[in-house]
């Protein structure tokens, strides 16, 4: 489907994610596409965007072609304003300094909950995944943007395990659990951009990516989709966006 375009699914995903950010925001980014997208936004339109990493970095300014292999490597500190302890930077989420948490996920459900811990029954897991890292903290304490590849097995009605909370079981359940702030704001995939309906807190399609039909999106999703009454079509990546992204990740570490 994407083959007729001059960009990969991962490039589209990164560019659409970058567009969700606005200048002046403080963004807590995971490694991979979130980091790449935040850096892209910073270079393209948002010079006043501040990137935080859970390794303990405020105001990262990643060098093109020198993407860090994790959020805890020295490359994350290049031209940063401050390095600090991991607990200290995570506590900035709790204090409320962070506008947007930005991460990927292995599995997401209709309420924006993410699973990166177990596939199958946690007591006897089919697959033990790496776990939360700072994901649970980011999702618990900030507005969150999730960037992930769109596959039916990744877009499920209920995740096997809630690692990083979205709206839990919908409605007021997130707040009732003690999570007073934050919540999943956007889910960005290579097929569409999603928001959440304000009452039920269920996922809703905001715009379809270029060349994607409603039926195709539904076929690739494990639950019945709601479409926004103002459903739009995503603007395709511009040459400028693609050029800069390829400069940032010339080895296609994360956008291949």
């Amino acid at each position: 489907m994407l083959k007729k375009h001059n960009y990969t699914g991962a490039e589209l995903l990164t560019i659409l994610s970058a567009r969700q950010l606005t200048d002046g925001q403080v963004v807590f980014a995971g490694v991979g596409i979130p980091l790449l997208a935040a850096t892209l936004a910073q270079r393209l339109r948002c010079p006043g965007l501040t990137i935080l990493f859970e390794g303990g970095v405020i105001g990262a300014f990643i060098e093109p072609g020198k993407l860090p292999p994790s959020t805890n490597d020295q490359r994350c500190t290049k031209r940063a304003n401050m390095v600090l302890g991991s607990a200290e930077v995570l506590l900035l989420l709790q204090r409320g300094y962070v506008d947007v948490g930005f991460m990927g996920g292995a599995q997401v459900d209709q309420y924006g909950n993410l699973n990166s811990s177990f596939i199958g029954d946690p007591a006897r897991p089919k697959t033990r995944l790496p776990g939360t890292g700072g994901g649970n903290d980011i999702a618990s304490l900030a507005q969150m943007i999730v960037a992930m590849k769109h596959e039916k097995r990744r877009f499920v009605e209920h995740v096997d395990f809630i690692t990083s909370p979205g709206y839990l079981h919908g409605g007021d359940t997130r707040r009732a659990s003690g999570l007073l702030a934050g919540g999943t704001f956007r889910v960005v995939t290579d097929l569409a951009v999603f928001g959440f309906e304000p009452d039920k807190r269920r996922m809703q399609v905001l715009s379809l990516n270029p060349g994607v039909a409603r039926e195709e999106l539904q076929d690739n999703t494990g639950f019945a989709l709601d479409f926004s009454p103002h459903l739009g079509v995503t603007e395709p990546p511009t040459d400028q966006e693609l050029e800069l992204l390829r400069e940032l990740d010339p080895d296609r570490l994360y956008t291949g």
Partner: protein
Amino acid sequence: MAETEGKPVGTAVRSYMELREELLRRDRSLRDKVVSLEEATSFVRDGDSVGIGGSTMSRTPMGMIWALIRAGRKRLTCSRSIVSSDGDLLFASAACDHMVTSWFSQGILWGVSKVMRHHVESGKARYDEWSHMAMGMRFRAGAMGLPFMPIRSMLGSDVRKQRPEAIEMACPFTGEKLLLVPALNPDVALIHVQRCDPYGNAQIDGLQFMDIDLAMAATKVILTTERIVSNDQIRRAPDQTKIPFFAVDAVVELPFGCAPHECYGVYEPMLRHMEDYVALVNDDPVKGMQQYMERYVYGPKSWSEFLALIGIEELLEAARAGESIYDA
């Protein structure tokens, strides 16, 4: 001692007075603590809880872990902010059968560690998952001499449901729900630093992760260091000292002590070695791991011999990249 079962961490909070008595018994004088890597292994006993410094592939005390595996340590409960291939080695050697951390794989570049999966899914070893901030607050509580810290994350999630040792409470001031995470006071902390003096005054450049809390929480601290410097040099810039000597029990000079991981400002990760390692062990987590351990852990006579196996070219390349962080 509370370690009758040998597994106090993660199941209970250590008694405050017992922790204080252990500190009182420590020789906290300004004295030379330099030992060899092999001698340092005697500070860790089978069944100990061991806190590991650094995070993911950064400032991992890899040489010390390597030495503990070679010394045949068993049944360790290890805790770390984020675990990388250090966890693979600890599980595969059976030195550790219980990992307490927030994330456990080789690195985000390589997907899910088949070695971790093999050990956890088969029940050979246990992986207790906490959020990253919860790990930090557990070490922080341990460092503060308090039994717990309240946090606002993990609530409502299944990560929290898996951890009955964390307790929800209503805040006595506001009535809001909070999660109390228990203090983590490891028996021993393993921490690698860029430089320290023979007494253990340690300077850490760049990212410090949770190492300061970990050092202050632990009952014993083993430092490995790229370089031992004089106490005079430390006293010229005391603001750079991050761990005070009286928290430290052993000092080992170990250049490239994090290899194949990175040490801030000194070397970046040796990614070719890591990629070869990942390809080997994720292809067959049992046989591949055995092969790796025989060649790189049990085979070499010394840490220098291990470094030679990684290869001078890769070490130099990693060192050039490491120092480049200070380029304008």
